[in-house]
């Protein structure tokens, strides 16, 4: 009796195992992989990553999101990657323990204002905050410099990114505090003039200006140029007082399992072709200090 049951059971089992193998395609070997974390949008990273893959044969896995949140997860061990691509230099320097030093081969050619002593991170591009305004709303006396931000004329009509939420806001504020004579009291005056509502990002600032919700704003040069290219009706103003380029960079996470590939990526990011590409197509300033190409001369004052 027992034997019979066993035989029947075996037969049924065999029937049950319908082979559902459709042939798993060849995945790339571990040597040929790289995991990158980036805060950039797809428009920015995708062409670069794709070019890197085609040139080197290394498969890239991209994760996106805010750098500060990611660093939190990195510390707690929830998540890891090989390279953080994007994020301002001070973030890397504050958490230097999480990253490995790497001195890119073209380091000598990089403009000194982009470099810092530390080899923890490598600069990738510069992006200065600029003024932007809506020409339909502002017909006379457009703003010319940072001083206009505390001019009561523009009270309640200024779009500014929240320093607590956005790197633009934070960096812009720090920069303004350095550039303007008011120094410490600047923040108070600004917030009085700007009011309660703050934007989340450079993109939002530009959009709000384009939509006519605000008259004037502070945004990254890159965002404004991109907006102009898309056909937004906005004007870009390089302020009289000047501006500092906020430098984004890359860093290799320590303990990364694809160290060599990570280094290749950093080399790639600062190579001439890429730097030309980002200045022509992504409106970012290259780290070699060259002029911006191909802004078409539109909307500049």
């Amino acid at each position, binding site marked *: 009796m027992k034997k019979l049951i066993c035989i029947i059971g075996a037969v*049924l089992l065999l029937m049950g195992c319908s082979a559902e193998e459709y042939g798993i395609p060849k995945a790339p070997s571990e040597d040929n992989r790289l995991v990158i974390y980036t805060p950039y949008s797809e428009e920015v990273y995708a062409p670069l990553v*794709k070019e890197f893959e085609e040139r080197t044969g290394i498969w890239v896995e991209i994760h996106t999101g805010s750098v500060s949140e990611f660093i939190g997860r990195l510390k707690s061990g929830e998540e890891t990657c090989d390279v953080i691509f994007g994020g301002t230099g001070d973030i890397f320097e504050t958490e230097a323990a999480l990253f490995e030093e790497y001195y890119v081969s073209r380091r000598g050619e990089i403009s000194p204002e982009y470099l810092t002593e530390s080899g923890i991170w490598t600069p990738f591009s510069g992006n200065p905050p600029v003024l932007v305004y809506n020409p339909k709303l502002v017909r006379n006396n457009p703003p010319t410099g940072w001083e206009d931000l505390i001019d009561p004329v523009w009270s309640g009509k200024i779009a500014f990114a929240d320093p607590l939420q956005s790197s633009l806001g934070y960096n812009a504020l720090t920069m303004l505090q350095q550039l303007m004579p008011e120094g410490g009291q600047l923040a108070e005056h600004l917030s009085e003039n700007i009011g309660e509502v703050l934007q989340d990002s450079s993109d939002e600032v530009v959009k709000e200006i384009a939509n006519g919700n605000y008259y004037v704003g502070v945004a990254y040069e890159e965002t404004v140029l991109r907006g102009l290219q898309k056909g937004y009706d906005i004007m870009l103003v390089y302020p009289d007082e000047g501006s500092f380029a906020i430098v984004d960079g890359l860093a290799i996470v320590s303990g990364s399992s694809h160290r060599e590939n990570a280094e290749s990526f950093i080399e790639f990011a600062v190579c001439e072709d890429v730097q030309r590409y980002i200045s022509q197509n992504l409106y970012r300033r290259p780290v070699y200090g060259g002029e911006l190409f191909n802004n078409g001369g539109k909307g500049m004052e």
Partner: protein
Amino acid sequence: MRAWIRRSFRNRIFVTILLITLLPLLLCTVVMMQVQMQRSETGMAEQAGQELLRAEAKFEGLMTSFGDIADGLCSNTMMHSALRRENKSSHVAYQLMFRMTDDMREYAKFEIFDRNGSCQYSTDNSIPPAELEPGWGILYAAGNSQELVYRSGTGGGLVAARAIREYSGDILGYVVISMNRENFDLLLSDIYSPANSIMVLDKYWYPVYLAQPVLADTTVSVLRSQLLANEQLTDVTGECNYITEYQEKTGFTFILKQPKVFTDTVRDTIFFVSTFMGVICLALCMWASWRLSRHLASPVHRLDAAMGEVQKGNFDVYVKSSREDELGHLADSFNLMAEEYRKNLKRTVEHQKEINATQLRMLQAQLNPHFLYNTLDSIKWMGVSNDASRVADMATSLAVLLRAGISGSEFITLSEELELIEKYIAIQAIRFEDRFTYETDVAEKYQSCLVPKLVLQPLVENSIIHGISESEFGYIKLSAVENDGDLVISVSDNGCGIPEEILSQLNDQGKRIPGQHLGLFNVSSIIRLYFGDKYGITAESEPGNGSCIRVRLPIQREEKHA
């Protein structure tokens, strides 16, 4: 379980029938289902594989053609000189291009770029000429290779390029071939069945062509992650299979998305329905087997029950059976056997009764001497004629006794019995010269009770002979009482008593010892034969202190005849 099966023949049949009906049914269903599903799926997979190969082959053919065109353009001296001159619109160059791409233009757009990345000639002038960057993307790749290189275009589509070089190796320009959605639709339509959809991904799994663009972004990135995670390719809903094929020439991957024949929901439904049907089948089979087994086993069961009755001693059983088969024969045989047994029993009982009756008669024959009676009569008359009155009295008494013994019915009234006893006493009184006295104490109401004749005589005799023969002042009392609905007649004396062993033998009704105490045993036997073991003789005695013998009889009254 085993014990339950062993316990009844019917249960055995039940289990057997159940298994026979159920197992093949289940086996068949399951096997059929599995085989069917297997075959369907295999068939579908094969078909999908075929379609994919066809698509891939057609694509490869196209790529080969592109390669040939590129070859032609790259080696053409007129093209070289046109590019060297760097002025647009060389008629010759255009003609050349159009001639070479004659039958291919519906599948792609062909362009010639100069070394700086400006488009000089194009087969599709509806779109304004594009600028490409020689240090980037497709042109960069073409610059680094001697052959046609293939990439996915930005936002999809295919773009292939080859550098047109001087003999020295310097780049003069580029041939760029682009395929968009429509081109792919045209190429790959009718190759695969409408239910399926095809995807072409580049070397790093970015989309080149998606037949169903709707879910484009998410689907491809999901697949890419699954690939990198070494997981099997599945879609979100779990209702489709992905079959992949790697295209060598371009490094592209072709993926065919085929809806599963048996999706999880379908499988669940099938499983649910089969289980449900299975349960119903089980119930039906059990019911049918139960009924059938009962029907088959019932005659056996009845026979078994009848045998049980017989074992208990009840022979009055009869097994009804209208069958003509072996079971019918068994039932008939059983009935005959029971009948025989019953008859046998009756005969035995009858026989036994006859023996008892005969024995009784024989017992009484011992008390029936015809001859002695006649002789005594003679003695009486000789006594009378010789004036010996005491001889005459003795003889008369004896005659009465004997007459009673010979004739008449088995039963007489107690009053008549007492008269006989008095005659007996009279005789013994003469013998024993008045050494004893005799007294009776019998109430009026008992006088008419029926008793077996001469049943008390042996008791009195026993008292006289064994009780008081040695003494001078013997006393015998005969009394009658009612006890427990029975008549108990006691004969007590003050004699020497009955010895222990004899006493116990008397009281133990089973034994029979010939010899001196024959009389008492006879009385006991007669009473028990007539009335049953409840009745008979009991004795009480203390050696040296008298004895009392009791006779227990049922109370029977004389029937008065008219």
